[in-house]
């Protein structure tokens, strides 16, 4: 895909900050606005931006399909795993109080992992849908 020089340079400048902002939203979600869902979409939007400017193939090389599909399931598994961890440590399902010696610290730990699971699944799904649509259009165009 041919893109103008300005677009490429601006994208190269912006994308690291978009991804960094996604991480900030993820890990600062306890203290300010944000959380797993927002961070996941911003992260996916950053990758989509990259794919738009530098082409789908380059994006697929950086974030391969296999990884995206794994992220899809991994996020839900992390979330459900936090619940199971609570069970194993003697609490109820999704009971965070037992995750650490100090109940409040346990809550923080539980929320951290749960948000991580949400972010992983959401960004995986967003990217997968984008890959599916974009890839489909191009291959059909070639065939026609």
């Amino acid at each position, binding site marked *: 895909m041919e893109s103008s020089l300005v677009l490429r340079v601006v994208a190269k400048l912006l994308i690291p900050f978009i991804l960094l902002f996604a991480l900030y939203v993820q890990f600062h979600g306890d203290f300010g606005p944000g959380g797993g869902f927002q961070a996941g979409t911003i992260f996916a939007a950053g990758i989509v931006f990259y794919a738009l400017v530098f082409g789908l193939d380059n994006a697929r090389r950086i974030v391969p399909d296999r990884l995206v599909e794994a992220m*899809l*399931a991994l*996020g*839900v598994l992390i979330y459900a795993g936090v619940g199971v961890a609570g069970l194993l440590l003697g609490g109820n399902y999704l009971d965070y109080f037992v995750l650490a010696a100090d109940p409040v610290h346990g809550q923080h730990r539980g929320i951290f992992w749960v948000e991580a699971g949400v972010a992983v*699944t959401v960004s995986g799904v967003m990217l997968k849908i984008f890959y*599916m*649509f974009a890839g489909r*259009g191009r*291959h059909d165009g070639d065939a026609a």
Partner: protein
Amino acid sequence: MMALAVLVLVRTRNLFAVIVLSGIYSFLMATLLVALDAVDVAMTEAAVGAGVSTVLLLGALHLCKSEEAKPVHRPWLPLSLSLATAGLLIYGALGLPDFADPAAPIHRHVAPRYLQNEVDVPNVVTAVLASFRGYDTLGETTVVFTAGAGIIALLRRRRHPRNEDGDHGK
């Protein structure tokens, strides 16, 4: 402003313009949500509504014609149905408590306990979503996962030509 965007959206037949307009609508919605102090939702609206879904719609537009077909039927029946629904909703909304009324039932039920903040997370939204309502969020994540799995099941190209032959029937 948003009403204007929607009106133009309905009148426009060029789908590319429609997609750009819906992106603008999403940004306006996000600013409205910021004005309502719902920054978390505004962030999601801006990223999903204006960002990702615009790109997805453009990708879908790439697959079809860029002009919307002329409607075949008269719009009166759907129009009257949606007007009736809107009227019903507005009538129902008139019965709601005043905006930001501290005595409203929603602020009396479980909200005080949420605000006591026994989980000690400064952002109450995160605390409610991830801790108090952990089951709900697990369900939502599963819904998102199911959506992704459904998309994969629908759009993935078949890797086995033999199956495809079988489906088409020789």
